[in-house]
């Protein structure tokens, strides 16, 4: 039985492909529409980045590549043996540049985010009651339109924030791509996994 690998077809895809090429491992041709591709004893599943931890946690995939941000949000019970050191970004609290007053002294705030679990836990730990508005994208719009006081979102360069008159005020977590491994596969298929993990480790900075 070949190993199954869950990969994001989103923003981590180019970095994953580059990593595999550096490691001398075959990688499916990009631009294909097939969501399951089998080459050289590896079965690749291409799924939404938020779903990668789910496929791995349930054991449908033996391993996968997911951002730390996504892992924090999913709370999935998977092993994370390797920081692959690409796809670096920060999860931040951002709000309009024009906003005044201390975020921490507000009695209640409304937060728009794609990361409701992370956002809720972050504000709870700081004793701020936050109403979390869950969005699936274009989160940066929310404060300007009055949907939320601030957002919790990932930032790479900060340009999107800037273009929407937002500024990062607090860092929630830093993130990078991780190799994640199913708990049972890690032990029960360790011989097969070891080759793959070693090559990926060797190809990571």
């Amino acid at each position, binding site marked *: *039985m070949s190993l199954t690998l869950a990969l994001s077809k989103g923003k981590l895809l180019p970095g994953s492909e580059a990593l595999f090429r550096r490691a001398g491992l075959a990688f499916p041709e990009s631009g294909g529409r097939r969501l399951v591709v089998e080459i050289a004893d590896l079965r690749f599943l291409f799924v939404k980045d938020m779903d990668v931890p789910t496929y*791995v*946690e*349930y*054991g*449908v995939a033996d391993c996968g590549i997911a951002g730390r941000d996504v892992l924090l949000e999913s709370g999935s*019970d*998977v*092993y*994370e*043996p390797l*920081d692959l050191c690409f796809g670096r970004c920060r999860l931040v609290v951002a709000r309009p540049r024009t906003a005044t007053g201390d975020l921490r002294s507000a009695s209640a705030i409304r937060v728009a985010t794609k990361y409701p679990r992370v956002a809720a836990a972050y504000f709870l730990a700081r004793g701020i009651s936050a109403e979390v508005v869950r969005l699936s994208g274009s989160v940066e719009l929310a404060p300007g339109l009055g949907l939320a006081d601030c957002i919790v979102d990932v930032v790479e360069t900060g340009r999107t924030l800037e273009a929407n008159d937002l500024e990062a005020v607090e860092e929630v977590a830093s993130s990078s791509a*991780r190799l994640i*491994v*199913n*708990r*049972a*596969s*890690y*032990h*029960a*298929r*360790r011989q097969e996994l*070891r080759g793959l993990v070693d090559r990926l480790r060797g190809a990571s900075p």
Partner: protein
Amino acid sequence: MNGPVERLLHVPPGVQCFVGEEARRRRRIEERVVQVFEGWDYEEIIPPLYDYADVFGGAALEARTYSFVGRDGSLLALRPDFTSLVAKIAAGRLAVRPAPIRLYYSGEVLRYEPPKAGRQSELFQMGLEHLGGDRAAADVEVLAIAAECLDGLGVRDWVLALGHVGVFNALVSGCRLDTPRLDALRERVEAKDAAGAREVLVSSSTPPEIAEAVARLSTLAGDLRLLGKARAALAVSEAAVASLEELSQVAEALGSAGLSERLVLDLAEVRGLDYYTGLVFRVYAPGLGFEVGGGGRYDTLLGRFGRPMPAVGFMLGLDRVALLLERQGPPPEAPPPAAEATSGPDLGVALRRTRERRALGVRVRFGNGGER
């Protein structure tokens, strides 16, 4: 979703209903496991379905316990776990019985579980507890029984991942970490994320050599050959090495008994019910993304009930075993022979003939001939 019709026709999320072939398969599994338990001279215990909530007072389970107020005002809880109940009964009802006491159970426990991989609110557990007696002997006995169960069930390529909570506890005992940070550290070590573990410790007063040992601990999972590497990596803590020696003694005995191929080391196995004090292990097999069962040593639990003695236990989840065997595609069992239709125009005659066939052990389907 929850209208009156749905409530009458469907079972709520978290519980299941098994019919016919499915139920039969589960019974077979249970019978096989129980046979092994009996074969190692364990006695069955059928504990109550609920007890005083205090009995299950471990922090790990409290939040997941279904509790309710009894008629007399006492707080009761549906059993979320068998181990506490068995410990209580061993310390109370069986107080005069000399150790070691060997008991097994097979039945449901109930826990609030978020709907997730392989989790139900109603879980069927088959397990045993070895109370008192020599610790090393009890550990190897329990692991050997687990092995025999798995082979007897026809599970393929299973492994026992062995760890020892004493290793991690010894390393962090000198770190003076507050609870949130300790939880964060445990979570990172369990995730086998060495860099993450280092990050948690970086701003604490943990001595650098201990921080490094904790980070290395998170990578000490794999073949038993890692034991040598582990000794070197953990040399900073005498207590950690002592726990490791305990573990290698157990692994060695199992290896001599022909089980070395089935054993893997997992020193990053640091989570779980907070009553474990020594050896911990989990059973994994390809085809199921999570453990099939597991167990460990809990030397302080019996003291809570007034009869301090060391103890070790293990359990298999019936639901998980059933799912695993289905995924691994076991050889199909022969279906039971078709029933013999026994009917006739005269009800009395037909019934007499049917009873005669039954006395011979024949499977019958009695009826008036109108059904198929």
